[in-house]
C-alpha cells in the first residue's frame, strides 16, 4: 500500500483548498473538516513502510562509478515518520475538533491554515529532497503567521509581522546554504549529497562546505526557535489562540527534527556540527527557562518553557551516539504531546476567566477540578516525574550524556528539569491554590467538553508511553541505526 504515502500530504492539502473554496456552506464544511481530520492519523497507521518516487522515476545506477542517483523527489516512510505523522495528525484532529465545537460559524480560512500547516510538516518529515523541504518550510512559515494573525488577541498582528520579517532573513540564508551544497554536488537529493560527502567526492574541510553548514544551521535556528529566536517563538505561541498554539508548537518541534536529521546525515563527519548543536541547545535551555521564571503572563511562560524544552531534543542529537539520538527523538515525541496538553489546559482557563495575568488569578481549583488535575499531571510529565513519559526520555538523555563523558551536561539537564518544575509549580500555585482575588469574575463555569476530551486522550498517551516506552524506542533506535 505504498500509494498511501503521497496521500499523507495530498489529503490535508486538498482539504485545505476545498474548505477555503466552499466555506460558505457551514454544515458541509464542518462535516468535511471533521472527516478529513479523522483520516489524518489513520492514513499513516494504515500505510506500509517504503519509498515513493514522484513521477515514477526510479533511481539510476551509474555503471562507471557504481553510484546511485535519484532523479525524482523521493518520499521515504519508515517507523519514525509513521509515529510522528500519526501524532501530528492526532493533534490536528483534536485541535480541529475543539475549534469546530467552540464556534457555531466556522471560518474557512482558519481551517485552511490548520490543514496547510499539517500538510507542510508532513511533507517536511517525509521528504528526502532538501529543496522540497525548503519550499514546505516557507509554506509552514506562512501558515504559522496566518494562525497567529487570525487570533483575536491584542497585538497579534504585530507579533505575526515580526515573525515574518525575521523569517525573511532566516529562510533566504537557508536557501543560500542549499545553493552552496547544490554548487558543490550538483544535486538536491539528501541521499546523493550524503553519499558524495561520505565517499570523499567533495572536500569536507573546504570553506564552502563549512559556510553551507553555517547558513543551513541559521535557518534551522529560525525554524526551531533556539536563541536568538526564542523570544519571537514564545511570542507567537502566546499570541495565538490556545488550541492554535498547541498545534504551532508541534509544527516547530517537527520542523526542528526533520531539518536536523537532514543536516545530521550530511554533516555528521564534521565535529564542529555537534559542538554547535550542543552550544545552542544549552543556551536555549538556560535562557528559555530563566526567562520563563520571570514571566507573569502564563501563555508567554508556557511558550518560554516550550522553547527551553527544545534544548533537550537538540542536546540528544548533538551528542551524536545512537542512544542519545534515540533519546532526543523520543523527547521530541513527548514534548509535542505534553506541551499541547498544557496549552489546551491553560486555554480552558483563559476561556473561563478571560484573564492571562497570574497575579490576578487564584482559587480556580474549586471551579475547575478536572482541568487542574490534568494540568498537574501534564506539568509533572514535563518536569520528568516517573512514571510519566517525560521521565523516560529525560532519564535516557542523562544516561546518554554520562556515557559520552559529559557529566556537566547531565547536571545541567537535571537542573533545567528542576527549574521547569519550579516554573510550573509557581504558576499552578498562583492560578489554582492561592485564595481567589475579590475582583476576579469566573464567567463560564463549564469548560468545553471537547477540551476535556482532547486533554484526556493526550493524557492517556502520555501515561501509556511512560509505562511502556519500548513501543516507540525500539523502532526509533532501529531508524537511528540506519542513518548513523
Amino acid at each position: 500500500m505504498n500509494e498511501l504515502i503521497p496521500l499523507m500530504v495530498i489529503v490535508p492539502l486538498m482539504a485545505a483548498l476545498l474548505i477555503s473554496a466552499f466555506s460558505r456552506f457551514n454544515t458541509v464544511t464542518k462535516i468535511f473538516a471533521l472527516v478529513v481530520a479523522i483520516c489524518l492519523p489513520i492514513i499513516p497507521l494504515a500505510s506500509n513502510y517504503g519509498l515513493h518516487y514522484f513521477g515514477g522515476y526510479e533511481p539510476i545506477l551509474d555503471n562507471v562509478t557504481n553510484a546511485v542517483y535519484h532523479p525524482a523527489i523521493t518520499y521515504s516512510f519508515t517507523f519514525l515518520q509513521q509515529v510522528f505523522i500519526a501524532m501530528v495528525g492526532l493533534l490536528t484532529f483534536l485541535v480541529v475538533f475543539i475549534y469546530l465545537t467552540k464556534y457555531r460559524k466556522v471560518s474557512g480560512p482558519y481551517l485552511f491554515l490548520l490543514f496547510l500547516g499539517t500538510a507542510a510538516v508532513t511533507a517536511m518529515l517525509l521528504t528526502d529532497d532538501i529543496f522540497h523541504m525548503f519550499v514546505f518550510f516557507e509554506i509552514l512559515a506562512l501558515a504559522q503567521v496566518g494562525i497567529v494573525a487570525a487570533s483575536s488577541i491584542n497585538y497579534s498582528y504585530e507579533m505575526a509581522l515580526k515573525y515574518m520579517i525575521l523569517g525573511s532573513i532566516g529562510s533566504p540564508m537557508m536557501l543560500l546554504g542549499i545553493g552552496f551544497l547544490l554548487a558543490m554536488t550538483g544535486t538536491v537529493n539528501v541521499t546523493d549529497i550524503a553519499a558524495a560527502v561520505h565517499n570523499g567526492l567533495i572536500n569536507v574541510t573546504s570553506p564552502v562546505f563549512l559556510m553551507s553548514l553555517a547558513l543551513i544551521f541559521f535557518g534551522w535556528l529560525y525554524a526551531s526557535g533556539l536563541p536568538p529566536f526564542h523570544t519571537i517563538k514564545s511570542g507567537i505561541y502566546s499570541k495565538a489562540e490556545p488550541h492554535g498554539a498547541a498545534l504551532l508548537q508541534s509544527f516547530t518541534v517537527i520542523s526542528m527534527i526533520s531539518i536536523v536529521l537532514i543536516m545530521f546525515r550530511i554533516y555528521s563527519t564534521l565535529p564542529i556540527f555537534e559542538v554547535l548543536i550542543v552550544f545552542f541547545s544549552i543556551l536555549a535551555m538556560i535562557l528559555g527557562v530563566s526567562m520563563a521564571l520571570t514571566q507573569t503572563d502564563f501563555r508567554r511562560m508556557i511558550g518560554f518553557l516550550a522553547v527551553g524544552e527544545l534544548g533537550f531534543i537538540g542536546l540528544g542529537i548533538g551528542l551524536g551516539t545512537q542512544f542519545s539520538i534515540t533519546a532526543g527523538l523520543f523527547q521530541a515525541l513527548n514534548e509535542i504531546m505534553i506541551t499541547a496538553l498544557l496549552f489546551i489546559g491553560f486555554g480552558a482557563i483563559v476561556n473561563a476567566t478571560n484573564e492571562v495575568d497570574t497575579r490576578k488569578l487564584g482559587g480556580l481549583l474549586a471551579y475547575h477540578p478536572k482541568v487542574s488535575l490534568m494540568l498537574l499531571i501534564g506539568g509533572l510529565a514535563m518536569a520528568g516525574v516517573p512514571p510519566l513519559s517525560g521521565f523516560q526520555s529525560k532519564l535516557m538523555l542523562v544516561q546518554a550524556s554520562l556515557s559520552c563523558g559529559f557529566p556537566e551536561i547531565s547536571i545541567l539537564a537535571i537542573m533545567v528539569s528542576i527549574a521547569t518544575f519550579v516554573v510550573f509549580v509557581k504558576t499552578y500555585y498562583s492560578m489554582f491554590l492561592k485564595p481567589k482575588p475579590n475582583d476576579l469574575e469566573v464567567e463560564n463555569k463549564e469548560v468545553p467538553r471537547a477540551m476535556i476530551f482532547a486533554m484526556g486522550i493526550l493524557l492517556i498517551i502520555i501515561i501509556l508511553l511512560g509505562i511502556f516506552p519500548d513501543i516507540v524506542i525500539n523502532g526509533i533506535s532501529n531508524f537511528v541505526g540506519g542513518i548513523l
Partner: protein
Amino acid sequence: MAQTQLIILMTSAALIIIGFYSAIFVDNIIKKIIGISFIEEGVNLFIVAIGYKAGGIVPILMPDMNTTWFASNAAYPLPFGLVLTSIVIGASTLAVMLALVMVIYKKYGTLSTKVMLADTSKQEEYNE
C-alpha cells in the same frame, strides 16, 4: 568568460549586504521590508549563477541537436527550476508582509518601526 560569473556573484553579495544593512539601520517599515526582500533576490541571483556555463547554450533540447554535444554545452537547468519556485515564494511573502503593515498602520498612524513594532509585553498584561 569566467569573469561574468564573478561579477554576478559579487552583485548577489552586494544585494545581500544591502538587505542586512536595511534590516538594522532603516526605520521606515515599508523600506525595511523592501530591503529585506533584496536578500531573497540576491540569493536567487546566486543560485542562477551556479547553473550558468560560460559560452554555453540555453538548456532546451531541439530535435536537430546531438545529445552528447548538448549535454556538454548546455547550462545546468536544475537551479533554474529551483529559482522559479523561490521567486514566487518571495513575492507571496512580501505581499503578506505588506498586508500586515496596512492593518497595523491603521492602529498607529505612522510607519516608524520603533513605534509600530516596539516591545508590547508590558502594556498589554495589566490593562486588559
